[in-house]
Each structure stands twice: as C-alpha cells, then as structure tokens.
C-alpha cells in the first residue's frame, strides 16, 4: 500500500466513523425524545397498536394482491398506449399532422387532470350511461382511468427518449436503405426505450401507489380494507400496516430504478 492509499483509507475510515456516530446520535435522540412527548401514549395506541397490527396484517396482505393484479394488467396497456401516443406525436409526414395534434391534446388533457378525478369521472360516469353488467364493472373503468393518465406520462417519457437519439442514427439508417418505419423500429426505438428505462421505473413506482385510488369507486383493495378496519376499530394502525406493505414493494423497486440509472450513467460516461 502506497502512502497515499494508506492516507485515503484512513480518511475514509474517519469519515465513516463520524457518519456512523452522527446517525446513531440522531436515532438515539428520536427514540428517547419522541416517547417523552405528552401525547405519545395516545399516538402509540392510535397508530402503532401491536395487537391491531398482527390481527389486520393477513387480511390487508390479501387485499394487496388486488392492487398487484390491477397493476399487472394495467402496465402492458399503459406502455402500448403510451408508445402509440409517443409515435403519433413524433409523426414526421405532413399528412399525419392531425395525428400529431391528437397526441399533443391527449397528453395535455390526461396529464393535466388529477388521477382521482379521472377515476371518478370514468369509473362512475361511463357505467352511468347504461352499460349492462359485466361491462360497467368498476375494475374495467377504473383501469381505463389509470391507463389514460399514465399512458400520457409514459408517452412523454418515450418521446423524450426518441428525441434524445442523435440525428446521425437516423441518417445512417437512411443511408443503409431502411424506410422510415424500419428506422424507427430497428434503430431509434431500441435505443430510446433503453435510455428511458429508469424514468419509466419511476412511473411504475408511482402507479403502484395510485392503484389504490380505484378504491374510491368500490373495489376493496388494501387502502379501502385499511379504512374499513380504521372505522371498525377506531384505530389508524391498519394504515401503518398498509404503508409497511407498500414499502416492502416500492423500496426495492426504487432501489432497482436507481441501480439502472447508475448503470446507464456509467455506461455512457
């Protein structure tokens, strides 16, 4: 080990020790001080009741499966529609101008409306037109609302990916004799999609949480089930249980998105 390496190792150790100690101090302060607050016992009973936690956990976990299912069938639809909108907005030919306008309006509209509002509007409004069962199901129309909103976001992400591909790629493809369709399919899109994977991972994490909004129009998923327990038991602990279950899924997903982001950055630099 050179003197320089030894010095750097020493510096690193020192930084780690200080970071560890300061973290420990903060944690200790929180652990010691919060329970000293006068209302702590009441808060603990309301939010962190062990018995309620254990009793409601299994049902809430089962209810979470519904969130996972809605998520699973929404994602392919969102990406298919998002890609279609992105391509529509990027259409080059003059004759396809209406398509570009449509894409722009679609994105503005559905990115601008709060998801909750769209869930209500589509979830109660469309079935209210008089559709017969099972076509008026809140599952169908709630999913439609999610897909409308999220495909608008995904379309913008994909479009930014497509536009980030250097013009030389397109020119090279033309020189090779590819037509514009094949250029998009074999040259631009494979690079563009790969480039925006981290951004789309963030979309998925957000979607995973917004799935719970479908509970407003009837389905008993985890948030609703927690709400039912809350009102039956007059205790907020079920919400904490739901938060823990959500975190178990979203934390690994965000970490994975970060990992992809870093990998992408390292690969490019």
């Amino acid at each position, binding site marked *: 080990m050179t003197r320089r390496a030894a010095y750097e190792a020493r510096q690193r150790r020192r930084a780690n020790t200080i970071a560890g100690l300061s973290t420990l101090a903060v944690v200790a302060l929180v652990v010691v001080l919060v329970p000293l607050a006068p209302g702590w016992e009441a808060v603990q*009973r309301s939010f962190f009741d062990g018995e309620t936690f254990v009793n409601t956990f299994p049902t809430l976990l089962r209810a979470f499966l519904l969130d996972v299912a809605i998520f699973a069938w929404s994602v392919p639809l969102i990406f298919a529609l998002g890609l279609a909108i992105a391509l529509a907005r990027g259409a080059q030919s003059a004759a396809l101008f209406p398509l570009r306008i449509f894409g722009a309006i679609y994105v503005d509209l559905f990115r601008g409306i709060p998801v909750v509002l769209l869930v209500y509007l589509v979830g109660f409004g469309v*079935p209210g037109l008089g559709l017969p069962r099972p076509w008026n199901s809140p599952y169908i129309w709630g999913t439609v609302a999610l897909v409308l909103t999220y495909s608008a976001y995904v379309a913008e992400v994909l479009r930014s990916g497509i536009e980030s591909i250097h013009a030389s790629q397109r020119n090279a493809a033309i020189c090779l004799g590819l037509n514009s369709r094949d250029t998009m399919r074999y040259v631009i899109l494979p690079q563009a999609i790969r480039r925006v994977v981290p951004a789309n991972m963030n979309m998925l994490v957000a979607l995973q949480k917004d799935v719970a909004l479908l509970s407003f129009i009837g389905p008993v998923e985890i948030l609703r089930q927690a709400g039912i327990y*809350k*009102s*039956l038991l007059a205790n907020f602990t079920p919400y904490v249980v739901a938060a823990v279950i959500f975190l178990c899924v979203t934390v690994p997903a965000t970490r994975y998105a970060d990992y992809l982001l870093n990998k992408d950055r390292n690969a490019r630099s």
Partner: protein
Amino acid sequence: MKNVLTATILVALASAAWADGHCAAGKTLTDGTLTIATGNPAYYPWVIDDAPESGKGFEAAVAYALAAEMGFAADAVTWVRTSFDEAIQPGAKPFDINMQQYSITEERDKVVDFSAPYYTAPQAVLTTQAVIDGGATGTMDSLKGLKWGVVASATALPVVMEQIEPDQSPLVYDDNANVTAAIQAGQIDAALFDLPTALYLSAVVVDGGAILGQFDPAAAENPDQFGALMPEGSALKACVDAALTAMTENGTLAQIEAQWLQEATGVPLIK
C-alpha cells in the same frame, strides 16, 4: 387592586351562579358554551339543509334539546364540522360532543367515549325499482344473490358480511354520495343504510329508488345505536348521559323522533 378584587369576586359569583345546578360547568372547551360537531356535509334527515344552527333535523333538534337539558341556552351552542377521522385521531379535539350517527361499538369505545344512545337505527335495504322488477324480494335468500355496496365508515359492512353473507363480495365506498352513484350506474344492486337515510336517498337522491325492507331492530344481536361521541375520558360524559336519560324518560327524545323521523313506519321487515 380593589378593582381586581371586585372583578375576581364578580367572576367567582357569576360562575358559581351559572354552575349552580349545571353539571357541565367548567367542563366544556369554552366556559359557558357547548361546542357540538357534526358532519361535513351533514345529511338529511339528521340535519336539514346542512344548517344545524337552525335546529331542524333530528340530530340538530336533539343537540339543542340536550344543550337545554344541560343548562346551555340555544345561543350558547357553537357548531363545528369534523370528519370521522378527525373525531378519532389521538390529539386534542375541537368539540365537546360530536353527533353524526356514530354507532356505538365496543372497539370504538376503547378510543373515544360514547354517550347513552339517542337513537336506535333499523338497517334498511336501498335498491332501485329496476332491481325489484328483476325479481329481488325482501327475503334473505333473495338478498344473498344481490351485488352489495356499503359505506366504509358505517357499521353496515359487518351486517352485510355476517347476516346476509352475499354470494359476491360487496363493494365499499367513501360516502353516501358514492354509493348512490354506484347504484345509479348499475354497479351494485343494493346498499345497506340506517332507515332514515335510506328513506331519504330512495325518495330524493336515487332515480327510481326503492326500499326493499328493513331489518327488525328488536331481532338484531347488536342493534345499531347512535351515541354522541366525546374525547376519551371526557369529564362531560356523566352530564350528557344524565341529560339523555332524562330526555328519554320525559319523552323529549321520542317527541323529536316523531317530528323528524316520522315517515320511518310502514317499511316491511326483511324475513
């Protein structure tokens, strides 16, 4: 100094005189005022036109009668609005008593205090004429086959799950408005409400609304009883209970019920 002394004596005399015969003295949020909370919005027929200050509607009328019984004049009653969640959160609460059709349950009683019940609510089935024309009847067998919807914060869900045991799992909503929207959209066949609310919704809110029947409150194991909600350990509870007991015994409650909830008779029982 003398002025201060006089003032002190006057205040002491005044509060002593006021406290005389009123068990609520010094136990309310603001001395001399009773702060009562209701829902936002408050629904018919519990509060008419969302204006509890008018004293119109069953709960508004009970609130003023209760205040009078406890020694508060009508102008000494202040109204505030809270959601269900605000009423059960662990911190300080902005009301002395909260009346918005809170069903008294054992679990809730651990976190907050309830007064003696001021109303026993029969549960009734709200549906539409179209569903009745489709063959639904007021029998348990028929009810099992319906698609149910209920409000999450109400005690109706356990009743649906345990007594009716429907074939399809019920859908659950935030409030009455969403349940009626779902009935209107044909997403659910029937919903369970307390009878006065069901009568109002079927007559005014739901197009082609109808009441399929009511559950006999006398036959229910745990009849749905409404109580005024108070913070846990409220010093006011004994006072409110005494007043409500007096109002039950002297017929005031029954009289208010007859005035505001009279049309509740004549609904067939579910068999």
